[in-house]
Every structure is written in structure tokens, then in C-alpha cells.
């Protein structure tokens, strides 16, 4: 099989040092007509500068409302192999850890029923299997689920949670990101597989303010590790950095956003009361500086892509929360958020958008959080504000 099409445009993209997706498609095209026709259609797109995909219809597996994105070529006669070309979202293990054995099993099944192409991983976090037909869906699902692999989310549902590598490898993880991610994924299985929300709801967990999973920018519920007590300093290691050529004054002290550090050429000091726990100094001097020991997470809410009211970053709602397995406090909180959102949102309204419409107060009241200064960059400016009867007592 393979080689049905001449692809002079795409061939250009096999040149150069970066690994080529064209090479990948060609590899699969040697084995599946799907991948071969995909190659042909993409080549055509490169010539005409437009895509040839129809809107997805609703396809899926029995009892589930999501996990599969229906996709059909708009040129099924020209490219019959991709008349159906649905993607299957397999829920990745937290932290994207695999064994070769498990991965090969996944690939074997995929070669049997799909295009032989994958996305490792989708932007939300799923292991995306790229291209199969409607009739293969049930079989695929049976094969995978019987081996312990389930589908991820799509549609107006809980979406597949994801997280940074966290305590598995990182010295800065203030929370067990992978355990949290796994726990909420399990806890919300029903909501993940049966879309019943006003719109999508995403959860991402980062172990510290570096936010290696971009939680603050692309999760309705962003959980970010932090600490409360003092930074621990090993002055001997500070000296080693200085000896190693680091300009501690310029690179660390002057870049501290709160100007709470000082260095006299010997001792590095932090005025912890002023520290905002931004992670800069710790990240750049990992051997010398350690976070405090009272660890937990900040809970932020609302980020999303720009469609249609403009992109949002998540907002702080709970500045600090201890998070220990089984994370019931977190699940409670998320439940309250979702319930309020579900009760109040219009269709296709994300939780951040709803908060903008309703204001923070009803949201905070719903999740039973008092107002605290950490929730704002600065207080309101204009003198137009509401009073409730409860404020008068």
C-alpha cells in the first residue's frame, strides 16, 4: 500500500533537521489506506490553501457522549480512505508516563482498527488516535477498555484533566499533581463521559508557580502549588553559585518582583513577609534555595481561549488550601463551582465568562469563600457597587 499520491509540496517538509510529520504520515501510509488518503488530501490543501474537512457529526460509543471527534472528508470520492476520519481520545495516565509494553499494546490495537497515526498528545492531554471509521469505534473501545484504558472527554463535559510531572521528578512540586489529577479524573468519570454541562470544563494541576502545564491559561479550574512559610537558604550553595559565575545581584536580587531579597556578596537574605512566592529565585538557584515546608495550592478559576469574549487567565479564588489525598476538600470545592455554573450558565458559556456576567460575589458565596485581597490585583475603581441586605446587619 502507500504511494497513491505524488506529494511534491509535502515532500519539502521532509527536509531539514526537525522530525517531519510528513514522514510519519508516509510511514503509516505504507500500511493503511486511511493514512495514504490523508496524505493526498493534505497535499491538496497545501496546493489550494484550504482544508477539506466537514463539520464533525455526532459519533461515539454506546453509553458515552464523548471521547470521539467525528470527522469526514468533504471530498470522500477523491479520498475514500478518509471518508470517515474520526479521532479517538484515550485518557492519558497522569503525568504522561508509560511503559514501552503498554504503549506497544495501544499501538497494536490502533494498527488493527485505525490509521496508524496518533497525536502524542492532544492539547488537553489525551492520547489522541488520529483517524478511524464509525464502525470501528465500538471494537476499539472494547479492546482498550478491556485492557484498562478509557476514553477522555469531549463536548460540553468535564474534559480530561492533566498535570505537570510534579513530585514524580520535580523538586518544586508543592502538591502531588499526579495523584490529584488521577483522583479528579476518577471522581468525575460520569461527567467526563456524559456531556451534561453548559460547556466544556477543564482542570489542570501544576506543582508550582512555574506552571509547566499552563494551567493558569487553559483550565477552567487551575490548581497551582505554593507554600506559606519561609524560603530555606543554604548559604554554602549560594557561594557555589557565586563562585560558578552567577551574578546574584543582577540575576536574582534585582529580578525579585517584590524587591525582598538582598545580597552583600556573602549572605543572601529574603524578607519572607514581602515574598510573593513567584519561584524565580528558587528556580534559578535550585541547589541553594528551597520553598518553605507548609505546602498546598492556590485555586484559580476561569481561563480559556478567546472565543468569543476574549481570552481569560484564571483568577485566584482560594489563595491557599492544603491538599492531601483523597483531596475531598478539592472535590467539594469543584463540585460547588460546577453546580453554581451549571445552575446559572447559558449554553456555551464557560465558568469564567459566567463570573464576568454575574460578578465574583455570587460565585464566592456559592463556593463559600469570603472576599480576600489576594483575589484581586487591585480593588475596583469606579464608585458603582452593590449592597445586599446582609451587608446592613
Amino acid at each position, binding site marked *: 500500500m502507500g504511494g497513491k499520491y505524488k506529494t511534491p509540496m509535502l515532500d519539502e*517538509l521532509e527536509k*531539514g*533537521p526537525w*522530525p517531519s*510529520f*510528513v514522514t*510519519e504520515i508516509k*510511514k*503509516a501510509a505504507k500500511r493503511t489506506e486511511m493514512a495514504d488518503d*490523508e496524505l493526498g*488530501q493534505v497535499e491538496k490543501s*497545501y496546493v489550494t*490553501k*484550504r*482544508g*477539506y474537512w*466537514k*463539520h464533525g457529526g455526532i459519533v461515539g460509543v454506546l453509553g458515552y457522549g464523548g471521547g470521539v471527534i467525528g*470527522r469526514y472528508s468533504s471530498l470522500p470520492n477523491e479520498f475514500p480512505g478518509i471518508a470517515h476520519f474520526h*479521532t479517538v481520545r484515550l485518557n*492519558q*495516565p*497522569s503525568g504522561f*508516563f*508509560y*511503559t*514501552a*509494553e*503498554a504503549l506497544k499494546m495501544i499501538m497494536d490495537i490502533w494498527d488493527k482498527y485505525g490509521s*496508524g497515526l*496518533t497525536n*502524542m*498528545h492532544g*492539547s488537553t492531554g489525551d492520547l489522541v488516535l488520529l483517524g478511524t471509521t464509525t464502525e470501528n469505534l465500538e471494537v476499539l473501545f472494547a479492546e482498550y*477498555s478491556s485492557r484498562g*484504558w478509557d476514553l477522555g472527554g469531549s463536548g460540553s463535559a468535564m474534559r480530561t484533566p492533566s498535570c505537570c510531572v510534579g513530585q*514524580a521528578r*520535580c*523538586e518544586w512540586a508543592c502538591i502531588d499533581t499526579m495523584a490529584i489529577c*488521577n483522583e479528579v479524573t476518577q471522581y468525575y*468519570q460520569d461527567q467526563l*463521559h456524559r456531556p451534561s454541562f453548559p460547556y466544556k470544563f477543564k482542570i489542570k494541576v501544576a506543582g508550582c*508557580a512555574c*506552571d*509547566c*502545564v*499552563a494551567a493558569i*491559561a487553559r483550565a477552567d479550574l487551575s490548581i497551582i502549588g505554593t507554600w506559606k512559610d519561609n524560603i530555606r537558604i543554604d548559604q554554602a550553595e549560594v557561594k557555589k553559585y557565586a563562585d560558578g559565575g552567577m551574578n546574584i545581584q543582577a*540575576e536574582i536580587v534585582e*529580578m525579585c*518582583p517584590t524587591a525582598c531579597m538582598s545580597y552583600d556578596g556573602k549572605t543572601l537574605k529574603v524578607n519572607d513577609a514581602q515574598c510573593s512566592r513567584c519561584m*524565580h529565585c528558587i528556580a534559578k538557584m535550585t*541547589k541553594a534555595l528551597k520553598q518553605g515546608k507548609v505546602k498546598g495550592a492556590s485555586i484559580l478559576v476561569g481561563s480559556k*481561549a478567546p*472565543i*468569543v*469574549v476574549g*481570552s481569560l*487567565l484564571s483568577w485566584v479564588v482560594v489563595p491557599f488550601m492544603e491538599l492531601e489525598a483523597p483531596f475531598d476538600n478539592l472535590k467539594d470545592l469543584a463540585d460547588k463551582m460546577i453546580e453554581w455554573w451549571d445552575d446559572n450558565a447559558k449554553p456555551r458559556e464557560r465558568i469564567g465568562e459566567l463570573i464576568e456576567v454575574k460578578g465574583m460575589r455570587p460565585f464566592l458565596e456559592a463556593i463559600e469563600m469570603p472576599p480576600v485581597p489576594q483575589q484581586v*490585583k487591585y480593588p475596583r475603581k469606579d464608585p458603582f457597587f452593590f449592597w445586599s441586605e446582609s451587608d446592613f446587619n
Partner: protein
Amino acid sequence: MSLPERQTDIGPPHYEKFLPPVIKKNYGKWAHHEVLSGGTMVHVAESGDKLYTVRVASPRILSTDTIREICEMAEKYSDGYLRFTTRNNVEFLLSDQSKMAPLLAELKDKKYSVGGIGPRISNIVHTQGWVHCHSACTDASGIVKSVMDELHDYFTTKTLPNKVRLAVACCVNMCGAVHCSDIAVVAIHRKVPVIDHETVGKMCEIPTTVSSCPTSAIRPNPKTKSITINEEKCMYCGNCFTVCPPIEIHNPQQDGVAIVVGGKVGSLRTDPKFSKLAIPYIENEPPRWPKVVAAIKNILDVYAANAKKHERVGEWIERVGWEDFFKLTGIPFTFQHIDDFTFMRDTLRNSAAFKY
């Protein structure tokens, strides 16, 4: 052949199954790490145990063949353990330092790129493009490949003032992390959709279509049983097309990409930032988008030459000011740069102090 018994709502397998012993043992007890080269690092546990990571570039679209090849290397060098990163690179997780050199040799041999660790460029977060999405007005993978070929040295060896996160979104839905990236590409339309009135009447729910438009550009047209679009108000977001396919937003001659810059997500030093518009439009030039590549290269070079150590692109720009960004990069400033979306207010300069 009978099907194996399906299970539901089991969720993903527990990650513990996939953790190498050195991780299980030292879980939550890592002390520090050191970057050894552009694509290797070692994490040292409080116990003294060490974990070596070798990071390898991936085009994200991977064939099962390649994944099997990677798995085989993992079996050979890292006891079968590997992971993927949040930016879609592959990481081999080695507990035995002596296996690093042979792994690197085999990777080199097989033309894998090792890199992306430290103050460098890592993989470009991107999404489906013409490969799979009906909404795409450019191809994501092609741009990524073209850009990364050009910037390859910054992945493998060369350093920059800090990490530079690149992203590509193939439409304004922005499934990639474009809206908070150091430098990113977002595909845009520039023309009002063309309406197939007959099909609209049949296929679409008119009220939903009308209300899908964020700028209220759409009104029902009872005569045609379709809709009309107010050209003045439409800003080509394509939301109507998502809701109602016969409203054709694609226009191969006019579709293209914009370049946005200065975003970030970490809270280190400065608050997370949205990316801001740098170049409002570059035409689609498949297969290798030379103008896009050149534009990104230019911005990156100017950043590398001007930023202080540890400054991200957005931090550098905010320090020198956007006036200087446009001057130093030579990018023309246009009406499109001036925000006229809902929240223009705070983007306009309300100060008597600025640079020329």
C-alpha cells in the same frame, strides 16, 4: 472473533504502574536537578539517587512505527520507562548513567533531535490544521516543521536569555496555548463569510446562528429564510461558521496568519501575560511559510540581542516598551494593532510619558 468485554468509566490506568522504580522510591523527595546539556538533565533525590532524563523532539503526529521504535529504545536503555512532556516531547527516564551515552548515540544515529531543556526553544505547541480540523485556516504541522528547522540550534544547543515558548493555532479557537506564548502564530480570516442562503435555511437554526455572533453582525433575514451579515461589524471570528457550516468563512486567497508575542504562563518575576499582536497578517505560503519563518526569526534575534538574562520575551518588551519593540524589530504599526475589541480601554496609552 468475539470482542473482549468492554468496561466503562474506569478512567485511565493509575500512573503508578508506569513509574520507574527510582521514581517510586524517591517520589516527592527530589532535592535538585542539573541541566547537563541541551537535552539531558539529572535530578538528584534527597536519598542521593539520580534520575537521568533524555528529551527528544517529536512532531506530535507520530506513526505507530515511530512509537514502537521509541519503545524499543526505552526497553534498551531505560528499562522500558518513558514519558511525554506537556509540550509533546518524549523523555527517556534513565536510572543508570552508563546507558546515557549509548542512548544518545543511537538517537543521533536515527536522526532524533535531543534538546529543549533549559533556556532554549522547546517543541512548538500546536494543533490539527489541515490534517484534521474543519476549522483550520492554515496548517499547523507544516508551520511548526518549517520554523523548527530554522530554529533547530536553539532546541539542541544554543541558549537564549530564558525559555522561549512558541505555539501555533490553526484558527482563532486557539486550541494551542497561543494566547499566552512568547511568540505564536494564529491563523485568521480577513473577509466576511459568504452565505449559502439556501442551505442555511435548511441546515441551521437561525436564532442560534444569530446569537453566535459576538459583534451582533448577524440578523435574521425572513425573506431568504436565511441571515444577513453586517460587513461593518464582522471581525471574521468564524463563530457563525462553527454553528452553521453553510456560512463559509474560508477564503484561501485572504486567509493567513498573525504573529503574536510576549505572553507567558508562569508567575516568575512578573504576572502571567497574554500574547499581543505583533504582525496582523502574513499570507499562507505552503509548503514552508518562508515569511512566517523569517518573521519569527527576526523577533527571536532581536529578543536574544536585547533581553537581559532570565527575561522572557514579554518581560523584555515591557521593560523597553512596545514603542521600542516595533522600532527594533522594524515591524510596521497598523490600525489592526490598536485594540477595538470589548476591552480596548486599558490598552490605550493614558500617560504623557513614552518613547519615540
